[in-house]
C-alpha cells in the first residue's frame, strides 16, 4: 500500500508517495535524484550507502524509508555550506584519498559522525570508528590522513 511521507533531506522538505518496503537509499537515489549515497552490497555490510539520520551515521540500504519520517536526513550532498565544501570533503580532495571514489561519500558521512563524537581522534580511534566502511581500492592510509587533516582544520576554525 502506497503511503505519503514527508521527508526532511539536507534541510529541504520532500513529499514522496512510496511503498513501505522501499529503503531510504532507493528513495534518495531513484525518486529524488540524490545519487551521492551509493548502493554497494545492499545488506548493511559495506557502508557505501551511509547517511546521517539526526546526525548519526546509519546504513540507508537497510533503513526502511517509513521510519525516517520526521527525522533530519543528511546526505553527502548536504554537507556543503554556502558554496563551501565541508572540511572533510576539502581534506579528501587535497590528500587525494580516492581512487575509484565509490566508497567516498559513505566514508565522509561516517567521518562526520566520528568528528561529531570525537573532534580530535587518534589514528587507532579513526581506524576503529571507520571500520564499518569498506574501500575495495584500499586507499585506507590516505582516508585516515584526510580525516586527521580535516579534524585539525575543524578545530582550527572553531566549534
Amino acid at each position: 500500500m502506497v503511503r505519503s511521507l514527508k521527508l526532511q533531506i539536507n534541510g529541504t522538505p520532500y513529499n514522496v508517495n512510496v511503498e513501505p518496503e522501499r529503503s531510504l537509499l532507493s528513495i534518495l537515489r531513484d525518486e529524488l535524484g540524490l545519487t551521492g549515497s551509493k548502493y554497494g552490497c545492499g545488506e548493511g555490510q559495506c557502508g557505501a550507502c551511509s547517511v546521517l539520520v539526526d546526525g548519526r551515521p546509519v546504513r540507508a540500504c537497510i533503513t526502511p524509508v517509513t521510519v525516517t519520517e520526521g527525522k533530519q536526513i543528511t546526505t553527502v550532498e548536504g554537507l556543503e555550506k554556502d558554496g563551501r565544501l565541508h572540511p572533510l570533503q576539502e581534506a579528501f580532495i587535497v590528500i587525494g584519498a580516492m581512487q575509484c571514489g565509490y566508497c567516498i561519500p559513505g566514508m565522509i558521512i561516517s567521518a562526520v559522525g566520528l568528528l561529531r563524537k570525537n573532534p580530535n581522534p587518534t589514528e587507532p580511534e579513526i581506524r576503529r570508528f571507520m571500520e564499518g566502511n569498506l574501500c575495495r581500492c584500499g586507499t585506507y592510509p590516505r582516508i585516515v590522513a584526510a580525516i586527521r587533516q580535516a579534524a585539525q582544520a575543524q578545530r582550527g576554525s572553531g566549534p
Partner: protein
Amino acid sequence: MKAFEYASPTTKEQAVSLLGNQWGETEILAGGTDLLSLMKEYLSTPKRVVNVKEIKEFQGIRYSPGAGLRLGALVTLEELMDHAAVKKEYPALAQAAEGVRSQQIRNSGTVGGDLCQRPRCWYFRNGFGYFPKGEGGEDLVINGENQYHAILGNSGPAYFVNPSSLAPALIALNAKIRLFGAQGWREVEAEQFFVTPKSEGEREYVLKPREILGEILVPPAKGIKSATYEVRQKEALDWPLAAASVALKINGTGVKEARLVLGHVAPVPWRCQEAETVLAGKSGEESIAEAAQVALKGAKPLSKNGYKVQLARVALKRAILQAAQGGA
C-alpha cells in the same frame, strides 16, 4: 523484498494486537539491521511489519544505585555503549555493545534486536533453515563447513551458535527480560530467555509470536566487577569467534562468587556453572586456568571447529582477568 503492510503503533497494546499468531506472519521492526537483511533475501516474508520504534515506553535508560539499571528494548547499542553509568557500573555490558561492529549498525541496532536476531549460521542465511540437510538427507553442518558452529550444546539437531553480543553479559549480570503480550507483562531470567529449537517452526527464544520484548532489568552491581572479552578473526565487522562475559563478587583478593557465560559457542549463551564453583573462594591465576579448563570440559568440536575450544578458554580467562583488574 516481498510487499507488506506497514503499521507503526504508538502504544504497546496496539502493537501486540497487530501481531499474528504464527511466527513469520508478522515481524517486529526496531532497528531493522537484521530484519531488513532477512527480508531482502526472502528468508522472512511477513504479511505485516509492525514498527515498534514509536512506542515511548520501550525507550530510554534509567539507572539508580538502589534499583539498578532499566534498559528499554529500543535503546540503541551506541547509546548503551556511551552511557556513563553503564560504562562505570556494568562494564561487561558496555564492552559487549562496543563489540557490535560498525557505528552505523550500533546507531540503528537496538538492545531488543540484538537479543532477538536470528542465527548467523551461513546455512540458515542461505535458506536451509536450522537443520540443513542435503539432497540425500545428510546433515550439511556435520559433513560440511562447520568452522563457526557450536562446540557445546551441540548434540543436535541444532549446531548454530547464538549470535547475541549482549546476552552473555546480561546473563552474567543476572538480568531479567520483560515481555509484553495480550495478558500483560511477564518476566524471565535472561538465562531462561534462550532455547535451542527442536523444529523449524520454533524460534531461539521463549518470546511468543504475539509478545514484544519491552525492557530489561539489571540488578545493582555494587561490589561486582564485570567484563566481556571477545576473540575475533578481524577487528572490523563480523561476529566474534568466541566470547566470554563474567561478573565477579570480589572479597579482598579472592573471588566470592562468579557468573561466567560464553557466547558464540552453543545454540544458546552458555553458562559455565561448574567453572563458577571452581573460581569461588579462590584467588590467583591457577584457579582462573582451572576454571577455563572445567568450562570447556564438555566441548565436542565438529570436524572443522576444534580451534574454538582453545579460543573459548582464552576468552574466559581474559574476561576474568579484565574484570578482576578493572574498576567499578
